[in-house]
């Protein structure tokens, strides 16, 4: 029958075209949403570096999604050799599942965060709603786009930055901060599961007045959509976001990829890796590279999770666990 032979032909053709290429070593990097473009370039650079250094051909595969969701997948058995996630708590969760030692964060410099970032506002060109700082976000008539803190790492940084801002205001306390952040989330129009989903909602679909975004994601949007459409607003206070990296011991020991996995992460700290990170608008930790790109990053006061929230485990428990403060203040649909 004609249809059958057609299908068979298609299938055979596809199988031939995609037949496996011999590879010396493969790595799976499970990462969060906005790092797609950075790791695409970094993986190529590392493959060249590894070829020159060890003589092996390294094939690096990527998986991207909301940071919390990705950690969940690794816990459920996604065979990640390395994870490069948005915040330490998501990797703590992997440690709690027994896949890596609990002191994983001490294994690499700078709390295992080769680059840092912060949270900024992305607004429409000309800033029609006059958004300058966090307190402009809670005004009525402002519609906000941010991902869901339950699944997205960037969203948790957004939330904590807003909370820290409210605490710093005259007479600020936990109760007022809760009221402030609750008001902010009542202005949220679309709650996507990952940072990239939020960006496309804001930039491509044109929904919302302001996107709470990773600094790197905001600059990338500016580059992709054109500086004639969007503007970046840096608030008076933001948060030092440290997206950490680690190898997954359980996986690399099983697959025999510890050496190359380790080298991959260390390459992130090398001048080449730092340079690439800076070019993708991540703040480099290497002092020399940071100095070179200092003009690219605006200076604003950055608080840390350790100082204001007593570390990620605590912040997670108080704010984002089931029944935590986020669950109390966020009512879907933005109504009370």
């Amino acid at each position, binding site marked *: 029958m004609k249809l059958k032979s057609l299908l068979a032909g298609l299938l055979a053709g*596809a199988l031939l075209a*995609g037949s496996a290429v011999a590879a010396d070593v493969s790595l799976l990097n499970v990462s969060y*949403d906005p790092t797609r*473009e950075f790791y695409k370039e970094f993986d190529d650079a590392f493959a060249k570096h590894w070829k020159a250094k060890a003589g092996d051909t390294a094939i690096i595969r990527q998986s991207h999604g909301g940071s919390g969701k990705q950690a969940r*997948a690794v816990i*459920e*058995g996604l065979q990640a050799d390395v994870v490069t996630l948005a915040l330490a708590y998501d990797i703590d969760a992997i440690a709690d599942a027994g896949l890596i030692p609990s002191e994983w964060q001490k294994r690499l410099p700078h709390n295992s965060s080769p680059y840092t970032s912060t949270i900024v506002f992305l607004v429409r060109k000309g800033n029609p709603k006059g958004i300058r700082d966090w307190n402009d976000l809670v005004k009525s008539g402002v519609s906000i786009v941010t991902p869901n803190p339950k699944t997205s790492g960037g969203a948790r940084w957004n939330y904590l930055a807003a909370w820290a801002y409210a605490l710093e205001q005259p007479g600020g306390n936990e109760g007022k901060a809760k009221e402030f952040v609750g008001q902010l989330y009542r202005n949220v129009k679309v709650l996507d599961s990952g940072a990239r989903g939020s960006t496309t909602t804001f930039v491509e679909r044109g929904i919302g007045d302001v996107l709470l975004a990773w600094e790197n994601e905001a600059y990338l949007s500016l580059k992709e959509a054109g500086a004639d459409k969007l503007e970046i607003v840096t608030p008076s206070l933001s948060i030092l976001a440290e997206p950490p990296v680690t190898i997954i011991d359980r996986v690399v020991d*099983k697959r025999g990829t510890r050496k190359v996995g380790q080298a991959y992460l260390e390459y992130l700290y090398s001048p080449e890796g730092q340079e690439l990170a800076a070019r993708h608008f991540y703040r480099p930790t290497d002092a020399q590279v940071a100095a070179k790109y200092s003009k690219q990053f605006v200076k604003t006061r950055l608080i840390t999770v350790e100082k204001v929230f007593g570390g990620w485990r605590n912040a997670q428990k108080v704010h984002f666990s089931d029944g935590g403060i986020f669950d109390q203040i966020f009512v879907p649909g933005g109504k009370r």
Partner: protein
Amino acid sequence: MSTSIALHAGSLERAETASTREPAWAKVVLISVALSFFAVFLLLPLGTVFAEALRKGWGAYLEALVNRDAWDAIRLTLITAAIAVPLNLVFGVAAAWSIAKFEFRGKRLLITFIDLPFSVSPVISGLIYVLLFGAQGWFGPWLQEHDIQIIFAVPGIVLATIFVTFPFVARELIPLMEAQGSEEEEAAVVLGASGWQVFWHITLPNIKWGLLYGVILCNARAMGEFGAVSVVSGHIRGQTNTMPLYVEILYNEYNYAAAFAVASLLALLAIVTLALKTLVERQTRRQLQEIAATSESET
């Protein structure tokens, strides 16, 4: 057998007389409502897919499709369908056969359960496999001990696809086989045919168009499934991305033209499915009419 055909023919006649009895304005309103819905909700989005895909010209379109990751996605989609569809074909025939030809305890229950994948959200369809085969799931520790990867690998994607496409063939065959009854098979057995002979020479020819129809629908869904597959995929580029997942990734990476190029392949698949479906439907009807004609001349 003849009762079903009479019913079929009766419903056709009724449809014709009912529509002609309506006043003219009602006809115009109804047709324009149907057509405008069709244009807004189906034609417009479909057109958008192709328009967006070709926004950067044919060169970019083809480039998006010959890309290595795109090929890997297409290949995985074909492999998944190549495993899921035959399995569901075997299951569908077996289920329809046992339901239509035998009486047994739990028959009603089986019919209800066949429909389960239709009523369950695809996300749940994916999650049940994570709960079964994930590292923290029921069989997780055993699977890890034996170094078997199901979730976040091709087997998980195939399983989830089988689950969501499970009812298509069976649903298509059960009414057909029930209507046909088992007189012909019984006659064949009386004349000394073996079980296989009955199946090949009597049952299969009787159900072939219905079967093909079910397979086409099953295949379309197998290739297009997003939700369930997304949950079990792990989204590893070049490894566990089917075409629908790859479309999402491209879209998220600002590759709009490429995303719509791959989406246009899926849309083409839908159109081909539709064409085949119409063809098969026509064949089925012709077959039924032939049977009706012969049974009438006999009586």
